[in-house]
């Protein structure tokens, strides 16, 4: 298959396939599940075949001209391939995992439909090189999230789903305004043709609304902790691992790989990222709801990713790219551990838990491993990403920001270890066994993946480095 076919398949196979799921569901449930897994697996495998192409550092543009410059353009380059691999792989895991997790609940057809549509749109977003189509996939993802957050249909849950949808929609339309401003300036939505364009600060601000709302960055972040009412699979893998990465990906795609932004904003954005990181870490430290704590932690870590991209040097960018991968693995693991614990103890309050390490050792260890990765302790994968981000920040001359970021890391250490101690150590208040083998297996796999990603860090590095070089075109 040609690169072009593979890319188109990667995007449209899950999207169109997702629409067939309800039909499959009418036939038989196992068939539907199997079909979903097949689709997800295909979506995960397809971008892997693009790696050789990506490693050459090449760029391929697929274009279908439509109307008014609203053309359908896909671009295959190391950055998009990297992001596609990370998100489709995680997406594939969610689908496999869901089969066991979700099979007691109602509305499974919708669940699988939305998850696959999500994955497909993510692929679309990743490969899109047209601002409007980026926005289009962006919003489809928002719809999927909305349905998935409100999956349990309880009134309050749906309200929170609405909140998430509205806040992200608000951010996104404001971002769209920014896109249109750029259009007004360049008469084009085509990213491949705008490389190197200096965009005005107001456009940057408008676009940041979208990025920050989607990536749950202060001050547009509060929907993310609230979105914890979704099924754990959704919070874990969609929110922690894929969804919130959209904003940072878009940041890399727009502000690094394509546009030049005014120097003032190059100063401001790192500050915003660090503030977000710090505030969220603070909120996490006082939070007692397990899932909310982890959600705040996600927000905090996203701040690092933004920071790395925002300082815009080689170390920062490659650190952030790696952060996307490492945080995806580790945070997904944390959420799934939380899911197991909550499932077993029927409470979300970490003060009511305790001593679970005795009854669920694997979960506890996996949690600890993932927590170490998030904190950034070697040899876990998270270390390299955080380290490089900090290095990049210092190298960019932002020593104080790096200091605050490191302070945030101390805070991260504090609250994650606190959570671990409260939940798994101490007196057993609500002893509960690890029941489900499949769930424990997945968290173990994620924990092991976190540590392997650290020890064998050189392997993803190759693609990341090529992507970094490709992004930082202004170095050339």
């Amino acid at each position, binding site marked *: 298959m040609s690169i072009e076919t593979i890319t188109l398949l990667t995007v449209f196979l899950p999207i169109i396939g997702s629409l067939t799921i309800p039909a499959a569901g009418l036939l038989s449930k196992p068939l539907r599940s199997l079909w979903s897994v097949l689709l997800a697996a295909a979506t995960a495998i397809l971008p892997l075949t693009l790696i050789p192409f990506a490693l050459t550092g090449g760029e391929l543009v697929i274009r279908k001209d*439509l*109307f*008014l410059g*609203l053309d359908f353009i896909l671009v295959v380059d190391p950055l998009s391939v990297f992001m596609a691999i990370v998100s489709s792989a995680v997406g594939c895991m969610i689908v496999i995992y869901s089969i066991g997790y979700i099979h007691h609940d*109602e509305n499974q057809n919708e669940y699988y439909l939305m998850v696959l549509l999500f994955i497909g749109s993510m692929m679309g977003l990743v490969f899109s090189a047209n601002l*409007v189509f980026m*926005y*289009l*996939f962006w*919003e*489809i993802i*928002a*719809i999927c999230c*909305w*349905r998935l957050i*409100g999956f349990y*249909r*309880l*009134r309050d849950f*749906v*309200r929170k*789903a*609405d909140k998430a*949808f*509205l806040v992200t*929609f*608000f951010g996104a*339309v*404001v971002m*769209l*305004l920014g896109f*249109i*401003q750029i*259009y*007004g300036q360049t008469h084009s939505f085509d990213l491949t043709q705008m490389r190197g364009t200096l965009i005005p600060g107001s456009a940057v601000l408008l676009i940041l609304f979208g990025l920050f709302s989607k990536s749950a960055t202060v001050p547009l972040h509060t929907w993310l902790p609230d979105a914890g009412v979704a099924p754990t699979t959704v919070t874990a893998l969609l929110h922690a691992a894929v969804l919130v990465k959209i904003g940072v990906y878009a940041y890399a795609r727009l502000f690094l790989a394509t546009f030049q932004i005014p120097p003032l904003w190059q100063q401001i954005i790192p500050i915003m990222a660090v503030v977000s990181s710090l505030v969220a870490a603070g909120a996490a430290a006082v939070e007692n709801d397990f899932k909310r704590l982890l959600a705040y932690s996600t927000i905090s870590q996203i701040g690092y990713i933004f920071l790395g991209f925002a300082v815009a040097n080689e170390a920062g960018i490659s650190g952030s790219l790696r952060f996307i991968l490492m945080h995806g693995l580790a945070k997904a693991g944390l959420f799934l551990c939380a899911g197991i614990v909550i499932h077993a103890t029927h409470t979300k309050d970490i003060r009511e838990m305790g001593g679970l390490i005795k009854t669920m050792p694997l979960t506890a260890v996996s949690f600890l491993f993932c927590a170490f990765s998030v904190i950034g302790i070697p040899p876990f994968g998270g270390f390299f990403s955080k380290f490089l981000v900090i290095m990049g920040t210092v190298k960019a001359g932002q020593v104080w920001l790096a200091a605050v970021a490191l302070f945030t890391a101390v805070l991260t250490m504090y609250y994650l270890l606190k959570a671990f101690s409260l939940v798994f150590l101490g007196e057993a208040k609500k002893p509960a066994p690890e029941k489900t083998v499949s769930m424990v297996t997945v968290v173990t796999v994620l924990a092991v993946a976190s540590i392997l990603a650290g020890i064998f860090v050189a392997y993803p590095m190759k693609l990341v480095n090529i992507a970094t070089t490709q992004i930082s075109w202004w170095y050339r």
Partner: protein
Amino acid sequence: MVFLFVAVPLVVAGVLPLLGKLSKRVLPDILSNLTFLFLLVYAATAGRQIIAGGPVSQQILWFGEPVQILLGLDGLALFMLMAIALVSLCAGIFSIDYMEHYGAKANYYALFLIMVAGMNGLVLAKDLFQVYLFLEVAAVASYALVAYGLGYEELEAAFKYLLLSVVASAFVLIGVTVLFGLTGSLGFEAVGRGLQELPAGPMAALCAALFVAGFGLKAALIPFHAWLPDAHPSAPAPISAMLSGLLIKVSGIYALTRIFFSVFGLTSLLSNLLMGLGVISAVVAALLALGQKDIKRMLAYSSISQVGYIVLGIGLGTPLGILGGLFHLFNHALAKGLLFLTSGSVQMATGTRNLDEMGGLAKRMPWTAATNLVGSLSIAGVPPLGGFWSKLVIIMALVQAGRWPYAVIAVLASVLTLWYYLLIQRKAFFGKIEERWKDIREAPFWMTAATVILALLCIGVGIFFAAVLKSWVQPAADVLAQGVTAVIPRGR
């Protein structure tokens, strides 16, 4: 033959009450829906051929005598005819099951057809007075249709609607007459030419003001909107769909646009006036919709808000703005029609329109819920549905013209829009099903079919937006855009 667009529904409407004696239900159903289908097919095939070589005005023979039935078909008119035919076909299909319990189906369809005939006539008219006349035809039919349920609220709504509409019609007619007095003619081109020759500033401006008010009332622009949230919810659901989806656009926006672009020429004053009204409508009505408990009333306010968008786009007057406005008109017609139809399904199943009493209906009414979701998201401007593209084009046009404040407000209003549509979703469909609705049933086949068709159209327009824009909307927008350049702007 262009005249068929008026004549066919008129003739069928005349025949129906007579045939209604033969067959109370089946025959009116079949006959009227065939008529709508004919109109659709005819517009899509013959209509396109007719205007292939440019806009035409057809004179026809009347019993062998050459008489003046002057109808003009151009891109814009064809575009409107398509929209009318599409929505009325779906509303007609929906009526098959829905109107069962209202009784007197033949009568109902006849009024429906008259309304369609009136709208078609209005779209095709090339004469100011005939615009007024067909506007009244559609209006009279709509009064009766709003009151069709004969309940207290239906009658109240119809009466207020009538009394406000009459005033509006009077304004319009006075304007028409004054223009007639100034230029000595009634045809669009003639009056347009006449106005160019005349230094008749104040009087023409007064006419323009009267038209804004009169057609503004028909289009339900704020502050002329107050009848709409009463009238549209009170009508039977397919009629609500027709009124919100079409009537306000044809007798309000279309007429206004046609007259302003082809007769007056869009001056900067008119442009600003329209945009101001549009933006106020978009925001205030969205806020009003937010507080509604009655699902149809919320939809009605939403119509006002969306009309505001359309007027904002068209009023901007740039080719892109017109394109966006017209496209939004089309998308809104589809989506709002769809939403009113689904609200009818819900009302029929649950017997209530109060959102607070509903809950989790998606469980029992999956098709209705899904199609309603499609409509909601389309109007809210969530991609990849049609509404997104039209709003996008409008905002693009606003930004391109440097109208930043309008663009920002338009964007924020779309957030408000999504807000209240999410309220509908949450309160009616997306949630745990209430105990009392455990036994309700999904809407009957034809109703579901109509909603599904419209939902598919919403999605289809979103996905094939480029084709729709290029082949249908662009020719329509071109007509108006040429109008803008042809007439020298006056005033300041």
